[in-house]
């Protein structure tokens, strides 16, 4: 059985002068699924998205979106895709409605259809009240929604979301996640880039991790978590003298050892979601009060440390030079 690949990229290469943004990246996304492209700033995520959305021509490799070559058939690709950039690309002087209508007219929907579509999307993104205000008066979250709405005017089959939640506060992030989920429910194929494992885990069917323009891992969220370690439970007892007792309880609920990661904060790796409830129950039974109790996925830094042996933020110029030579 062959899977129906909507996005397939092989060996994408792109250099900007001395900077090797992409050094042979492969990506593939099956119809109706979400691929999360995870990587730190400067890893090449945006460059990959710009190539797949026909904004950039690759120096090497090839890519097809919706069955069309992004270089030779760029026009056809543009009819298939919707792009939401890292920086909300809406026209600030136009109202939300004018922004969406303009895109509709440019997509040849015709004036009447463009109006209907704009109204639909404004409603759907909860922007109807602000529809006739210039976009410059919108909050960051509203701008993101308008930007996303603009990319959906033409009912694209394939949607590129370049760091859709960077800079949004956590509650707005959840909203954006729900939007992405409903797009996928409606049958869209989504490629989303992110700096958060948590986000990729929440949305993606598969995750590709890239670093310095190369793919360093590709797996399902569960597979990736098996490699980089699953969730960590962090506990801070209010009474520091009971740290040892707390550690003993933590060791019981998990198979790992409890480390004191910060002063008075214990961390223990946990493999299942019941661990949290079990911990709470046992701490309560022992009469240990806590000021902090939380469950974390590894941060991007931790993911990268596990995969590459160095942190994501380290500027590793030596490796780049060696590759260049």
């Amino acid at each position: 059985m062959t899977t129906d690949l909507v996005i397939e990229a092989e060996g994408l290469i792109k250099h900007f002068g001395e900077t090797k943004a992409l050094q042979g990246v492969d990506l593939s996304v099956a119809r109706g699924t979400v691929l999360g492209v995870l990587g730190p700033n400067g890893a090449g995520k945006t460059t990959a998205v710009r190539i797949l959305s026909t904004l950039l021509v690759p120096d090497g490799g090839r890519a097809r979106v919706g069955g069309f070559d992004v270089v030779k058939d760029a026009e056809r690709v543009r009819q298939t895709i919707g792009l939401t950039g890292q920086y909300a690309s809406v026209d600030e002087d136009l109202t939300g409605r004018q922004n969406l209508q303009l895109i509709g007219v440019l997509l040849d929907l015709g004036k009447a259809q463009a109006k209907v579509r704009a109204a639909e999307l404004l409603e759907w993104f909860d922007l109807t009240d602000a529809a006739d205000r210039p976009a410059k008066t919108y909050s960051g979250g509203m701008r993101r929604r308008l930007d996303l709405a603009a990319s959906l005017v033409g009912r694209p089959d394939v949607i590129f979301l370049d760091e859709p939640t960077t800079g949004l506060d956590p509650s707005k992030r959840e909203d954006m996640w729900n939007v992405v989920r409903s797009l996928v429910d409606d049958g869209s194929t989504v490629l989303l880039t992110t700096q958060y494992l948590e986000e990729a885990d929440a949305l993606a069917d598969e995750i590709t991790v890239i670093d310095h323009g190369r793919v360093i891992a590709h797996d399902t969220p569960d597979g990736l978590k098996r490699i980089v370690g699953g969730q960590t439970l962090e506990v801070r007892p209010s009474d520091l003298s009971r740290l040892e007792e707390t550690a003993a309880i933590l060791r019981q609920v998990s198979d790992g050892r409890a480390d004191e990661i910060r002063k008075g904060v214990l961390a223990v790796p946990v493999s299942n979601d019941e661990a949290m409830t079990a911990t709470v129950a046992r701490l309560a039974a022992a009469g240990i009060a806590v000021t902090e109790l939380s469950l974390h996925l590894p941060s991007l830094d931790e993911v990268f440390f596990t995969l590459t042996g160095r942190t994501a933020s380290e500027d590793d110029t030596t490796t780049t030079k060696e590759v260049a030579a």
Partner: protein
Amino acid sequence: MSTTTLDAPRRPSTPSAAAPRPTKRPFPLVRHSLALAKRSLIKTWRTPEALIDVTLQPIIFLVIFVYIFGGAVAGGTQEYLQFLLPGILAQTIAQGAIAIGVNLNTDLEKGIFDRFRSLPIPRSAPLVGAVSGDVVRYVIVTISTFAIGYVMGFRITTDPLSAIAGCLLAILFALCLSWVSVFVGMKVRTSGAVQGIMFLVIMPLSFASNVFVPTSSLPSWMQTFVAWNPLTHLVASMRGLFLGAPLGNHVWWTLAWCVGLVVVFMPLALRAYRKKV
């Protein structure tokens, strides 16, 4: 945005069952450019302060130059006003072309062009649209200049048709000169630099010309430059069309410059735009 709102009204149709793909309509460049020109007009309408250069400058220049230099250069303010107005119109309209390069440069930084470039429209449409939308600025310069000119005593001595032809020629020239500004706007990094470079281009064109003084008063080496200067020909054409001065070949020279500017700078600007990352 609350989660409930998101769940309630589903997207009206799924992308795969998409409404019939819009059929290809003819003349995409013209239609899309017009849609984008409308965008420029809305922007202009929303930020009237961006029109200060084309509304107040001709007024200030006319008042200052006529009353300061009138007596010395032409022996009287009235004569000088008749002589100067076409020149000031040409100068302001040329400077009005600076704004488009500055604006497009700012637009590029904001990422709105990424959206346009990801749409199935001709790649040049956003630029052609922006340039066309600027017509309104040039019309405003023209009206503003004539309004203050008439208050100060300027009179057209030919017929209305010739006068309109003169104005149209000036607006056409400005549209063609815009492409130089667009090119610079695509090439340099900051909008401030666009302004600076374009000012350096427009400044010698306006002063080393027949705008302020009769060319016969200039040193001979400069007269060679003046004779080639497109603004000289534009101003001479307007003096002919507004005041009945001898037209010579000036209209043809102006049109030749228009064609030349577009032929050279439009492809350069479009190429720079396509390359812009």
